[in-house]
């Protein structure tokens, strides 16, 4: 049997059992090493990013999906399309701004939509307000670059106020 990625003989036959059905892979030593490297033998079997993205597209019309794909997070700028294609979110505010869109995916993966476990002891509340800091630090950089020192000092004050909030 040949390696699925090149012409060498496949000496490694890998079975992935994460998710529903087993997936068979036949690879040469080199490609098997790459594959296992990517998929992290020592870690858990994570869902490949692409499958995550595909799950999100299910049940959407082309127009709906096209419109959804253009939506972007105001904090980190990631579009829904970026997330769908990479399977990784851009910042914690994405869970807020894409809340509805992520829900079916969470049900699909976990069968549940609410956390019931541990909470941080010192700061056991919602931290979404702190994502403003991400935006403000970007603003500060822009203001400094534009030599708009008045704006920069305003932003700096706001950052200090919010950082005080963290404690």
């Amino acid at each position: 049997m040949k390696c699925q990625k090149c012409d060498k003989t496949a000496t490694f036959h890998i079975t992935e059992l994460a998710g529903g059905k087993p997936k068979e892979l036949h690879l040469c030593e080199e490609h098997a090493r790459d594959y296992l490297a990517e998929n992290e033998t020592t870690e858990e079997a994570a869902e490949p990013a692409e499958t995550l993205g595909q799950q999100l597209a299910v049940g959407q019309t082309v127009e709906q999906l096209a419109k959804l794909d253009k939506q972007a997070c105001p904090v980190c700028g990631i579009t829904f399309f970026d997330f769908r294609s990479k399977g990784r979110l851009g910042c914690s505010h994405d869970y807020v701004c894409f809340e509805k869109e992520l829900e079916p995916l969470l049900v699909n993966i976990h069968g549940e939509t609410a956390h019931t476990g541990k909470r941080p002891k010192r700061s056991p509340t919602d931290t979404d307000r702190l994502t403003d800091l991400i935006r403000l630090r970007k603003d500060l950089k822009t203001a400094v670059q534009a030599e708009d020192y008045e704006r920069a000092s305003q932003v700096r004050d706001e950052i200090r106020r919010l950082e005080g909030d963290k404690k």
Partner: protein
Amino acid sequence: MAAVDLEELVRSTGEWLRGSGPESDVVMSSRIRLARNLADYPFISRASPADRTEIEKTLREGIRKLGEAFHVSYLDVSKLEGLDRQFLVERQLISREHADSEGARGVAIDDNEQVSLMINEEDHLRIQVLKSGFDLAAAWEKINAIDDQIESFATYAFHERLGYLTACPTNVGTGMRVSVMLHLPALVITRQIDKLFRSLQKISLAVRGLYGEGSQAMGDFYQISNQITLGRSEEELVKQVSEVVPSIIDYERKAREYLVRESKQNLHDRVSRAYGILRTAQTISSEETMHLLSSVRMGVNLGLIPELQIPTLNQLFIHTQPAHLQKLSGSELDTADRNIERARYLRAHLNTEDGAADKN
């Protein structure tokens, strides 16, 4: 916080390899990891190099300030050579993804290699606790305490309803992955492994095994872990994995007993031949080594090779991997030279006076 002495690490073995934990004839190790992110920085995929540097600094400094009670040393992974990073992956102290990524990142490791804190992996922080044998309860107790200590200075991204927020939605909620590494050679020989896989999938546990030629697993090692991270408490997740392990251990031991009873001669022959090859080969691949060490490991557990100890074998599984071999021999080697060096290393460690390997 002291810097990690890599050369010293090369020659030592982690606590989890000592084979001293509960049920260590079947369970190699128990591991729990928690994924955490700082609330005021973007996730890694959207973090600028400056963000990454600040995340790394915040976490590193914070961990350092936890002080002497928190016994860890630090390694700047971004400054390490490829071989050293590969070495840490083989040692299970960092992930492959962490080794191969770019930009500011590091790892804090405790003295006996039970705890590793990876900074700037897929999430800002990945806390890992690794224990020898079947010891998930102790692993949870330890990682829970470490998490509290870190949370005393770091504000984690947290959502009222969704819990701890992670870069990938597969980890959201508890951010926790509970896993055990099992050695199941008898279930492989008696062809019962597929049946076991199917029953575990039904209760949403993930199983991984690596197959070589002839559907023989690489070293007959399988990892079982939870897939769900949201909607169950950490204790429930620990319980879910913990409850299934004793029956797998039982299943494997029964298969071993069956082999001893029904075909002791064949079994003894298989084990002895494996031991013989490992002690005499002049060149040997990593795959063949794993395969033979697996038979020998089972043989030792069944009392067929009285002069060998489990910790020695566990150590050989790790020390014969590519980066370890190169670090131990002090030179970079290509595949062919590695195979020769591996055979030499095995002969040296399996042919000492009383059969037991020396420590170096």
